[in-house]
């Protein structure tokens, strides 16, 4: 009875992990611009790999006691995925990649094409610009 239950849990974890990772990669392929594409791998693929590793942990814990080393990769992946996503977003902003018109938000780094006035050239009088 317990064996069947554990097998069901392992099979569920493996298939859930596969489906999550596949959806993440589908988002990486199909979304429109880089800022949308960043969402798929950084959230969904991490969850998929974590599910697969937990399934593997249950599988190897069946015979002789719990095997907690596999949890190490899960924790490592969950810690490092936001860091690498943050660095990738920073480098994309640095390269001024064009956002899709439907992408919301106006980060300052993408607005530097607008002309900036120095103190000497500042428009005088009652101009709407500061």
């Amino acid at each position, binding site marked *: 009875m317990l064996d069947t239950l554990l*097998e*069901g849990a*392992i*099979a*569920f974890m*493996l*298939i859930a*992990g*596969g*489906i999550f*990772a*596949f959806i*993440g*990669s*589908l988002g*990486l*392929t199909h979304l429109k611009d*880089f800022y949308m*594409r*960043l969402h*798929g*791998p950084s959230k969904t*693929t*991490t969850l*998929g*790999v974590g599910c*697969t*590793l937990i*399934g*593997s942990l249950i*599988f*190897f814990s069946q015979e002789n006691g719990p*095997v907690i*080393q*596999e949890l*190490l*990769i899960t924790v*490592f*992946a969950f810690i*490092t*995925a936001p*860091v*690498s996503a943050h*660095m*990738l977003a*920073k*480098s*994309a902003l*640095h*390269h001024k*990649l064009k956002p899709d018109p439907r992408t919301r938000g106006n980060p300052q780094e993408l607005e530097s094409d607008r002309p900036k006035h120095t103190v000497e050239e500042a428009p005088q009088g009652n101009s709407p610009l500061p």
Partner: protein
Amino acid sequence: MIATALWIALALFSAAIALNFYRAVIGPSLPDRVLAVDTMYMNSIALIVLFGIWVNNKDYFEAALLIAMLGFVSTIAVCKYLLRGDIIE
């Protein structure tokens, strides 16, 4: 039951790696390619773990841990290079 689930998971992860490879080839910008390779190493960790379940051997976990650590460090290094034009200043 586990064997069937293993085959389905292997097929899904292989398809995910193929999609990542497609994005890495056509990616219009450099951060796109870096993101695709980053996702590819995450998926390959899962593939190695699934292979370990298939042959019923615990030792493949260490290879997966090595890939995780080196992949993270290399992603951060390439991002530093894209940001600053240098890795260690």
